[in-house]
Each structure stands twice: as C-alpha cells, then as structure tokens.
C-alpha cells in the first residue's frame, strides 16, 4: 500500500475511463484530442507505477511512450488532415492542464527518487512528454495542411 499506487489507480480509473468514452463517441476532432491526452495520462500513470513498485527500470516504458505517443498523434494529424480541416480541434486549456499536471507529477517523482541518474531520466521523460503533447496539439489544430492530390 503506498501513495504512488493510489495516485496511479485514481488517475487511471478517472482519466483513462473518460478517455475510453471520449475516443469512442462524439465528433472526430474530440476523439483525436482525447487520443493525444491519453498518451500524457498513461505515461504519467506508468511513471507513478514505476515509483510505486520501486522499479526504476519501468521508467523505460514511460520513455518510449513519451517518444512514440506524440508521433502517433502526428500520424492522425497527418493522415486525417482532410477530415479535420473543416473544424480543427483546438484544446488549449486541456493541453495546458495536461502539461502542468505532467510537470507537477514528474517533479514530485524526481524529488522522491533523490538526485542522480534516475531523477535526470524522469525529468527527461517529462520534458519529452510535455513538448510532444504541445506540438501534437498544435499539429491537430491545423499544423499540417491538406496534401495536394493528383486527381
């Protein structure tokens, strides 16, 4: 029983539950934004779990997710650009909340793990995740124009 695991459980039950609902219903724009936010959410949850299980090795999962998650969202931004263009999904507030939440959790984890390689790695994951999330939001909000087609 420890606080990190409780935090992860609450985050997953609330956040990921809402994410499943958000990605399965509603207009396309909302679904894509939800997918983007899910990356941050799951990454933070995995970092919390790594701390809760006292296994720094699990941080590698967060590292990979912080890289691949935003790339995945860019895939949607790129290949669904035509469908998203009429109503580009903008979610500045949600993005800001996600970035702030990520930063808070990562700093708390880095403090808890003490100075050293582990803390640097955690901060790196956090920085990658926040940057990726912000850039992916920007890409969804019309950052990638429609591709010219040869018809």
């Amino acid at each position, binding site marked *: 029983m420890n606080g990190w695991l409780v935090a992860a459980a609450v985050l997953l039950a609330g956040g990921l539950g809402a994410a499943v609902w958000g990605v399965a219903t509603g207009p396309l724009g909302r679904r894509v934004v939800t997918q983007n936010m899910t990356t941050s959410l799951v990454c933070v949850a995995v970092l919390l779990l790594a701390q809760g299980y006292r296994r720094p090795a699990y941080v590698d999962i967060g590292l*990979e997710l912080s*890289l691949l998650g935003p790339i995945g969202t860019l895939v949607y931004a*790129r290949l669904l650009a035509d469908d998203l263009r009429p109503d580009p999904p903008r979610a500045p507030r949600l993005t800001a909340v996600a970035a702030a939440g990520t930063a808070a959790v990562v700093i708390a984890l880095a403090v808890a793990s003490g100075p050293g390689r582990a803390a640097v790695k955690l901060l790196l994951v956090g920085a990658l995740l926040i940057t990726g999330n912000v850039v992916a939001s920007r*890409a969804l909000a*019309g950052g990638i124009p429609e591709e010219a087609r040869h018809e």
Partner: protein
Amino acid sequence: MSRRLRMLLLALGGAGFAALFAAACLELPHFGAARHPYGERAVHAALARHTANVVSAVNFDQRAFDTLGEESILFAAVLGTVVLLRQTRGERQVRPEPVAVARPVRRYSLVMVPVALLTGLYVVAHGQLSPGGGFQGGVVVATALHLLYIGVDYQALERIRPVGGYEVGDAAGEAAYLVLGAAGLLGGSAFLANTLLPYGTFNTIPSGGTVPLLNAAIGMEVACAVVVLLARFLDQAVEIVDGSGE
C-alpha cells in the same frame, strides 16, 4: 450464407465457447498463485548465465529456436507484403506534392529523429539488462525514420530510405541469427546453444554470452523489416494511383 444463418452460427459458437471457456477458467491455477515451476527454473537458468533480463534469456537462450521461428514469420510476412503490394500493370506512379507543415511541428520532428533513433538503439543494446530488446528497439528505430514522413515530407523520408538497402538489412539480420546458431553447432554443442562466449559480469552490457548478439541481430531485422513494410504501404497510399484515370 444469409445474415440470419451467420448470426445464428455465431451465437451458437459464442455460447459454446463461453461455456467451455468458463469451465476451463475455474480449473486454471488461480490468478496470482505462487507456484510457477517453469518460471522458477527459467530464472535459475538465466542467472546461471549472467543474464539480468530473464525474459530476454528465455527468448534468446532457452527458447532461442522458437524466436528463430517467430522472426521467420516476420520475414515471410514482409516478403508476402512486398509481393502483394507491388506496382501492377495499369498503375502509374505520381510524385506527391510537398506539404507545408507548420514550423514547430517540423522542427519537433527533425529534432526527434535522432533522439528516437538513440532511444531505439539504447533499448536494443540494453535488452539483456533492462526491459526491452531487439524487437522493441527495432520498431522504435523504424518509427523514428518515419517521423520524417509524418512531420516533414515524403521526399525527406525517401532521401534516407533506399528500400533496397533495408531489404538487404532485413535478410542480413535473419542470416546473422542463423549463423550465430550454426556457430554453436560448429563450437561442438547444439544449434543456438549459448555455450560459445564467456558469460561476462552480471548486469553489464557484454553479459549473457550470445544473448546480446542475437538481440542485436533481431533488432536489425525488425527495424529493416518494418521500414520495408511501411515503404510498401506508403508507396500504395501516396504514390501509386490507378492508371486508368479517376
């Protein structure tokens, strides 16, 4: 087969499966039980050969032959895709127009390509120590390259992706795995037996005998295979159009 008949069959099959599966579940060892005879033996065997990541030890040492089969499946699937998605008669190739991706997205992609490549190589290189391995790292490496298509431009991807080279790399990775296996045979023991190299110091990169080498071979094969696979799909979706005119 009519829709109704199909649904009836599905309902019958589903009900049968559900009943049998539920019955089987009740007889399975309970979730979270403490007895794992195979797992304990695998851990002992891995520690005896100084491999810190037992899952890698199982994959590349104790079950190395099965992994050969798995990689052959990957190899065959890529081959099948290449055959299925070739350019056929009546189709022509067009150059996709360049797209103007927003500046921050473009910059992010360009910066992330080396970062992701490095991470992929890190995951491959530490496969015998920490979670990860040839497959996971290989996919990350291949994904990193495709960031150029996603975030920059198709032409940018094409410049760093001579598909022929990656096809050779795919085959070379598979061949390296076979050669390492055969080396065990020549060294006087069995195919893919991990008896050739010293086992090294526990929890350092050159530990575990042939595990790191097999890991690297798989990493190379997977990275090249994914690049070739995606190249075929990208060709179809971006470049090749129906020649009869749309």
